[in-house]
């Protein structure tokens, strides 16, 4: 495992072909190698995918020769005389053999040489060496001078966000909620939008919450004896739906972290992480104990009987819909 990111420029190709190549390359390259999708004007490109018709262009030839980087010509010839050795790939792609071969022979061979000059450290070790993020690191995203901000980590671009419009556009070939403590951000420029997919836009708060939630060692957490209240319900990811709905239902009324942990019988660290992720997206506020409304119903005999009936009914509903 190593800590490497490749800057790949795609030039002269339509959006559909570009997206197809990006997705295939992401699947072929090892997951520990990050990809930054960029343009030929980038000074730090490591590789070019170029429409064959523009290959002889002086600018492209200068880049390839001066930087001595691997390239792949993309051809629309119907004869499909493609070859990894000749750096030629025909589209549409019927078989990934040539692309895989080219990645192994030309791209990975090249990067392996570069890797040998780098110290080899595992992702986990690298993550441990990096400082845990403060909640304010994420909260400050919403007050960044630039309304559009690009988030990166050691695997490359994660997303571009617009904190005015509350939107996020993701790097399409990555897992939606994958990152680690190497995450950082800066103002996005127009050229950065080549790195993300504009086909689908995400609600910023939903995406950022789930990004933090899915990475438990990413940020610091609040003390267990504190009370917090949510401002709105976050839309949960499918896998953690039940837990996130339960936690939201507790904290929307204002609740103490330890109390929720005890009541739902889940680890306090999980509840702390939930509140931390909500604080990071400005969706939780510290409240006093007396403002808390969670679990305040008095328990007398009549209510206990009623509770039993309700509990039985809820269980039947949950069984029926497999919640």
């Amino acid at each position: 495992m190593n800590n490497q990111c490749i800057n790949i420029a795609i030039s002269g190709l339509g959006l559909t072909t570009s997206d197809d190549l990006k997705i295939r390359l992401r699947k072929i390259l090892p997951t520990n190698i990050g990809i930054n999708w960029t343009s030929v004007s980038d000074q730090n490109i490591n590789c070019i995918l170029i429409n064959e018709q523009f290959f002889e262009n002086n600018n492209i030839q200068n880049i390839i020769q001066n930087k001595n980087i691997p390239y792949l010509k993309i051809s629309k010839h119907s004869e499909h005389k493609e070859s990894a050795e000749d750096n030629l790939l025909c589209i549409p792609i019927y078989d990934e053999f040539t692309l895989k071969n080219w990645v192994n022979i030309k791209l990975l061979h090249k990067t392996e040489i570069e890797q040998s000059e780098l110290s080899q450290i595992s992702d986990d070790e690298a993550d441990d060496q990096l400082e845990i993020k403060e909640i304010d690191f994420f909260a400050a995203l919403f007050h960044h001078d630039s309304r559009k901000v690009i988030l990166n980590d050691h695997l490359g671009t994660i997303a571009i966000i617009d904190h005015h419009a509350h939107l996020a556009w993701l790097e399409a070939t990555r897992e939606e909620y994958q990152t680690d403590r190497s995450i950082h951000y800066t103002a996005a420029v127009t050229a950065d939008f080549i790195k993300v997919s504009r086909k689908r836009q995400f609600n910023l708060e939903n995406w950022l919450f789930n990004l933090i939630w899915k990475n438990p060692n990413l940020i610091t957490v609040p003390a267990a004896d504190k009370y917090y209240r949510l401002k709105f319900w976050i839309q949960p990811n499918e896998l953690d739906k039940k837990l996130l709905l339960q936690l939201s239902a507790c904290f929307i009324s204002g609740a103490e972290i330890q109390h929720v942990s005890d009541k739902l019988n889940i680890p306090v660290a999980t509840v702390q992480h939930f509140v931390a992720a909500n604080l990071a997206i400005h969706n939780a506020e510290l409240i006093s104990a007396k403002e808390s409304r969670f679990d305040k119903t008095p328990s007398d005999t009549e209510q206990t009987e009623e509770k039993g009936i309700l509990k039985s009914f809820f269980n039947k509903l949950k069984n029926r819909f497999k919640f």
Partner: protein
Amino acid sequence: MIIQKYKIVFAGSMGAGKTEAIKSLSEIPVLATEAFNTDDRSHKKLNTTVGIDYGEVTLDDGSKVGLYGTPGQGRFDFMWGVICKGAIGTILLIDHSLATPLDELEYYLNIFKQYGENIVIGVTHIDDDMNKPTHQYRQWLMERNLNLPVFFIDARKKSDVLLLLETLITTLEVKYL
């Protein structure tokens, strides 16, 4: 009209997907009362519900939960109170692609809040208008100190409709247990 002991109500603007949502959950063919839509200023859909959509699910003990879809047009509002009486909760669907979805939200919320406080809001047709921010719904609710769940869904997807239903149930469960 079949009135079940346990009811879940689907309400909201015309074309928001109430009939589709009920179809995705119901274990019986939905009794739909659709007619040719003559109100094309409100929505361009060809057919619209003019009576009550009815679907149902059966629980392990044989008891039925009725799924009731209210007609989206305001002239049928006299039926809403009857349907909502004693309901487990209301799933309110709002079509994001409408010109003024917040006005629709306000209109339906003001009415259905009278019948019960367990309401979950599903905003549909998000991809049909990417220029309007989805955050506006949360902002609108926060400004009015309303902490109702609002989720962005596709009413044709069973998993999305189940998210709304699970939220209704979880809200009650956490509140009363």
